């Protein structure tokens, strides 16, 4: 009962552990629900571009069949290569292309009249737009093939799937499979970022609060040492410990992921590096810098916040206010592509510095270094601002006297906080 009273009456715990999650998760739910809905709407509105290179009765039959359940546009007699495919898709503002190749009709006739082992193939090309769990749910091709075969005969039609990655047709790679493989891999990064930032924040906050709790701060502040050096020491110590922790975590996670994926049969031998879907050296560098500046900004924020606490417990409750800023973008970007979100949400996510490492990780895979660089510049500016505020804070007596007084604020009356 005593413990319950202690916890419930502590406004920092109440806010950090109860009120914040009550707000954060509904917001997250709203974002995800919006993303699912908009992905479904886009799938319904999407145009399937059909290139008819056969022009027989059977190809007309297939086009009419497609026309019943999908929005289609038809072009005829075009030899498809990388450039023509991209031009056509751009012209029709589409990301999916179905080619009815020459000989399709003959194969259909042969299957129906002579040899049921002969199948008629169509070629499907899907543009790879990025990793997002909801984006590939609208791919209609498997449903068409299934319905068509049910109507006529089993295994009469099959689709040879290809993916267009960065303007290049990669034959034999199913866009949906690729997306799901990449999804399982890229989900690791937001989780790593989340854990790394949470650990570091805890360490930095504890390191400052311990000085207060153990009564060593006053001695430290009277040593012949620049206050900025004290701050830098706290930050670098936290970065080092958090870095070692993150490394241990990533090694462990990698082994776990390896164990899981080795149990799954290799999906048509998809080699992500050969497809250009692994960050380049520059990409890794940008990603590293992005993560580092985000880490610095989180630590500086934690140091400032924890300076308002009297002890370690208070500091850990106070840094609880930073967690929604870490969890929200990590969870949201794990499932949703930022480009598909409403404008206001985009602004909010771009404004949160901890979104940028995840955004950068997606961008560098697609070769979009500008987005990653923009994130680094923004987070660096934010970090410099917070570090400046932190160093100013450390240079004044507020580091000793500052204390968040919830009761005082509620009563709108200042109470002295200093022992003298």
């Amino acid at each position, binding site marked *: 009962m005593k413990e319950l009273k202690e916890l419930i009456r502590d406004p920092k715990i109440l806010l950090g552990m109860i009120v914040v999650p009550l707000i954060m998760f509904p917001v997250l739910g709203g974002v995800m629900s919006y993303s699912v809905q908009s992905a479904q709407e886009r799938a319904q509105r999407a145009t399937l571009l059909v290139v008819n290179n056969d022009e027989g009765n059977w190809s007309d039959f297939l086009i009419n069949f497609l026309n019943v359940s999908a929005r289609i546009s038809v072009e005829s007699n075009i030899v498809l290569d990388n450039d023509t495919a991209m031009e056509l898709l751009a012209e029709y503002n589409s990301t999916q292309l179905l080619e009815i190749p020459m000989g399709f009709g003959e194969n259909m006739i042969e299957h129906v009249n002579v040899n049921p082992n002969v199948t008629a193939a169509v070629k499907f090309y899907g543009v790879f737009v990025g990793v997002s769990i909801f984006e590939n749910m609208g791919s209609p091709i498997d449903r068409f093939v299934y319905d068509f075969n049910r109507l006529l005969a089993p295994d009469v039609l099959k689709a040879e799937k290809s993916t267009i990655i960065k303007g290049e047709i990669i034959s034999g790679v199913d866009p949906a499979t690729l997306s799901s493989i990449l999804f399982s891999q890229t989900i690791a990064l937001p989780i790593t970022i989340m854990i790394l930032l949470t650990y570091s924040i805890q360490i930095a906050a504890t390191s400052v609060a311990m000085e207060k709790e153990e*009564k060593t701060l006053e001695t430290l502040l009277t*040593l012949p040492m620049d206050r900025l050096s004290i701050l830098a020491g706290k930050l670098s110590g936290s970065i080092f410990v958090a870095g070692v922790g993150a490394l241990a975590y990533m090694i462990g996670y990698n082994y776990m992921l390896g164990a899981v994926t080795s149990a799954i049969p290799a999906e048509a031998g998809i080699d992500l590096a050969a497809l250009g879907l692994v960050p380049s050296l520059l990409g890794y560098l940008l990603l590293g810098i992005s993560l580092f500046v985000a880490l610095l900004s989180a630590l500086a924020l934690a140091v400032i916040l924890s300076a308002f606490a009297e002890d370690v417990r208070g500091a850990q409750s106070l840094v609880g206010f930073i967690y929604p800023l870490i969890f929200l973008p990590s969870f949201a970007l794990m499932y949703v592509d930022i480009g598909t979100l409403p404008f206001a949400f985009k602004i909010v996510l771009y404004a949160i510095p901890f979104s940028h490492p995840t955004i950068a990780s997606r961008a560098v895979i697609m070769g979009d270094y500008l987005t990653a660089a923009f994130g680094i510049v923004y987070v660096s500016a934010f970090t410099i601002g917070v570090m400046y505020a932190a160093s100013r804070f450390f240079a004044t*007596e507020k580091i000793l006297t500052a204390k968040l007084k919830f009761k005082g604020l509620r009563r709108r009356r200042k109470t002295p906080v200093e022992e003298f």
Partner: protein
Amino acid sequence: MQKILIIVIVLCTKLVDWRIKNMSVAVEAADVVKVFGEIRALDGLSFTVETGEIFGLIGPNGAGKTTALRVVSTLLLPTAGSVNVFGLDVVDRASNVRQIITYLPEEAGAYRNLSGWEYLEFMARFSAKSKDESRGMIKEAAEITGLGERLKDKTKGYSKGMKRRLLVARALMNKPRLSVLDEPTSGLDVLHAYHVRDIIKRYVKEHDVTVLLSSHNMLEVEHLCDRVALLNKGKIVALGNPQELKEKYESANLEEVFAKVVKLA
């Protein structure tokens, strides 16, 4: 040109050192006011500490002793008035002041996961100019603490008295120009308190250290300090040599002096 510049800088530094060494006034506080919200912790506090003396601030809880020592140690900024330490303003030249002082807070702790020895090593690094000097400081500090082999243990296992001895040693080991000690014998038993007082006296005499300290214990201050200032409600109500004060107020000890002065005030 570069050489001349270096020579000028070195000469200036030497000149400042010489000036500090030869100053007769260690601390000069003039009309110091410190306000926390609605409370005036210091209310026009003025006093002077001469070089090489032990000066005590005494008074009851809440008199402003700790606040005064924190202002002198550059931890708090005075709301009004000025404080100079060896001619250096504690606000404008705080970093210079920190180079010549040490401060022992009343409720100080040591880093719990460091051993006593490691703690002294860490602290020596800030003032020692060479490894030899650092080693010398630590050796001397180890003697002051009297902790012997226990210095190798982590400080989290120390008793309050052991920790206090370690911290007093830290405050004196680099022989600062001014050592500001807030309740230096707090938490120590009679024997260890006697030992610490003896060390403070020895350092002042042998190493030209000036000490500004505070204490509740007026009898202790009587034996230790060359001069004392009696503080009440942020103001000095009496100042002088303990013997002179006792004679002036016809009292047997400083406690009686304080009681009479407060009544008169």
